[in-house]
């Protein structure tokens, strides 16, 4: 019993922390409270994962009202994994934030910054834990609104237009989602995901259900930045403050992919998908996204923008697994979800260290820094290798599963696309590494500037993520083991 309370506490703790942090005086106190809360939430998330990894499902009724009338928090291995990622990234980003935020955001906005960060964490964790569709919408909007506010705090004025563009597109996406939910409610009379899964099969031929599915898919495709609807992402990631970029890049889109998995496989089952052209459409969009965005990333001159386009391509990989629709495909999606959070988190943290020392994120200002900041450079190298998918890193595991899933479906085009995507990733990772290490350091030597290595507070979280990349490249028990457990629950009745 107590365990289910703790699952709820994961969402309530940041929610309680946010108003408290908002009224604290500016200084170290908001940061300290936020960090404490995020570490406690991470501890609870790890504990929760240990509880559900055996296949046990935690069910918590809000308000004591039994589902399907009440709101239910239903936590199985998939939720627990996503919650672990979100809380883990938050727990690592907040120590990083102490120095980074002090440099980028004026002092009088610090308390409100951390309050908004806590609200974003609440929203993302709520999405991961809930089993009720409307509750999902509420938490989706909480996390989205706080991320719009966080993004607009960037130094340049383009941060404002980037936040505005994200606001318009994000709200349209959320409104599409809620139209779909309304249509589903009108047809079935329930908002609980498990109950919907039971009531929908007899209604599959109904046109309203197809419309609802279409609205929900488009709404969330906007949120997770699937290829044609990704337009807000590069601007948002480039102009946001560094801490916000790290946190959002590693969590927000992953949670949206998780929701899409839930919708596609739990609420609407695989048999529904196979009767619609959705899976082929997803495959087409993903292929275009992976190739197009990886290609486009090579031409970028700003390191944050380069990694943002790379993120869109990697999301293409994740949705590829959904499009393939098999057990191996979903396994690949979930494993890549976890690993990409680690990869992008590490890479963005390393870029953040460079930005902290240099003050700009453009590649031309990074020349030769690799020799003067060796630890940061090593982090970028390992993170880059993971992004490419070199054996021995976490990225390899997820690419391996994707290739296996594609081979199982005899879809050789997809296999080729995955491999070409990795080659393109080599190109843009090499671009960063070349500028950092091999470009002449004349400029810096002429001006006699020595750039110190990044401070310890920035290095330690970065290296925790980098080492996690390598660790999960060798020991796949946590990721693949949990994911296989999760997939059994996600696609019920499918034999291995």
């Amino acid at each position, binding site marked *: 019993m107590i365990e289910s309370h703790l699952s709820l506490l994961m969402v309530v703790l940041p929610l309680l922390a946010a108003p408290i942090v908002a009224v604290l005086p500016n200084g170290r106190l908001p940061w300290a409270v936020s960090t404490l809360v995020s570490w406690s939430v991470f501890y609870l998330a790890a504990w929760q994962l240990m509880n559900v990894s055996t296949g046990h499902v935690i069910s918590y009724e809000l308000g004591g009202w039994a589902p399907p009338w009440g709101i239910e928090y239903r936590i199985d291995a998939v939720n627990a994994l996503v919650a672990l990622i979100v809380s883990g990234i938050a727990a690592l980003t907040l120590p990083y934030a102490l120095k980074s935020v002090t440099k980028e955001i004026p002092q009088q906005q610090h308390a409100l910054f951390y309050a908004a960060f806590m609200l974003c964490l609440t929203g993302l964790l709520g999405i991961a834990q809930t089993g009720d569709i*409307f509750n999902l*919408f*509420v938490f989706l*909007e909480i996390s989205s*609104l706080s991320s*719009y*506010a966080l993004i*607009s705090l960037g130094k340049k*004025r*383009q941060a*404002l*237009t980037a*936040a*505005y563009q994200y*606001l*318009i597109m994000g*709200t*349209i996406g*959320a*409104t599409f989602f*809620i*139209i779909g939910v*309304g249509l589903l*409610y*009108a047809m079935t009379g329930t908002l609980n995901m498990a109950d919907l899964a039971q009531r929908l099969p007899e209604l599959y031929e109904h046109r309203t259900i197809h419309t609802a599915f279409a609205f929900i898919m488009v709404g969330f495709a906007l949120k997770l930045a699937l290829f044609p609807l990704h337009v807000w992402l590069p601007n948002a990631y480039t102009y946001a403050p560094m801490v916000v970029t790290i946190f959002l890049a590693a969590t927000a889109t992953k949670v949206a992919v998780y929701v899409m998995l839930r919708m596609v496989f739990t609420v609407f089952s695989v048999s529904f998908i196979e009767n619609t052209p959705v899976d082929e459409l997803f495959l087409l969009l993903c292929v275009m996204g992976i190739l197009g965005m990886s290609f486009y990333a090579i031409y970028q001159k700003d390191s944050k923008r380069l990694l943002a386009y790379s993120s869109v391509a990697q999301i293409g990989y994740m949705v590829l697994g959904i499009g393939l629709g098999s057990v191996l495909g979903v396994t690949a999606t979930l494993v890549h979800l976890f690993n990409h959070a680690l990869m992008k988190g590490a890479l963005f943290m390393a870029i953040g260290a460079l930005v902290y020392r240099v003050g700009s994120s453009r590649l031309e200002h990074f020349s030769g820094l690799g020799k003067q900041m060796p630890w940061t450079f090593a982090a970028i190298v390992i993170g880059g290798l993971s992004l490419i998918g070199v054996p021995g890193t976490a990225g390899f595991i997820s690419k391996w599963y994707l290739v296996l899933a594609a081979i199982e479906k005899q879809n050789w085009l997809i296999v080729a696309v995955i491999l070409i995507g990795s080659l393109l990733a080599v190109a843009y990772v090499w671009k960063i590494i070349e500028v950092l290490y091999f470009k002449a350091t004349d400029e810096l030597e002429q001006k006699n500037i020595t750039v110190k290595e990044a401070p310890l507070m920035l290095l330690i979280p970065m290296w925790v993520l980098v080492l996690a990349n390598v660790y999960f490249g060798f020991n796949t028990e946590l990721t693949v083991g949990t994911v296989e457990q999760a997939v059994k629950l996600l696609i019920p009745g499918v034999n291995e």
Partner: protein
Amino acid sequence: MMEIILEHYNYWLGVIIMMAGFYTVISRGNLVKKIVGLNIFQVSVFLFYISIGNVKGGAVPIIEKGITLYSNPLPHVLILTAIVVGVATTALGLALVVRIKEAYGTIEEDDIHNQDQSL
């Protein structure tokens, strides 16, 4: 034909308002007009939800002695939440527009784009 329109007039109304709002968001270049269009878009969704909650012959969903058939109170609660979300989004959007005006001097999307391109 007339029955199709008259029977389901709430759905028709919802769709027309939704498309009006959505078109405003896409086609207008003025940032404030975009936010207004977004609001109209959201209002259509609210109308749709509340209209499907109505039960033919049902009373207002407040408990009173002697009445057995009530309209569905759940959509009302859902829409209350959605309205609050809409208000918060509008306030945030308008605050961003005020800051954009101070930073760029204009709130027309084309002018802002030109100013950024020339950087």
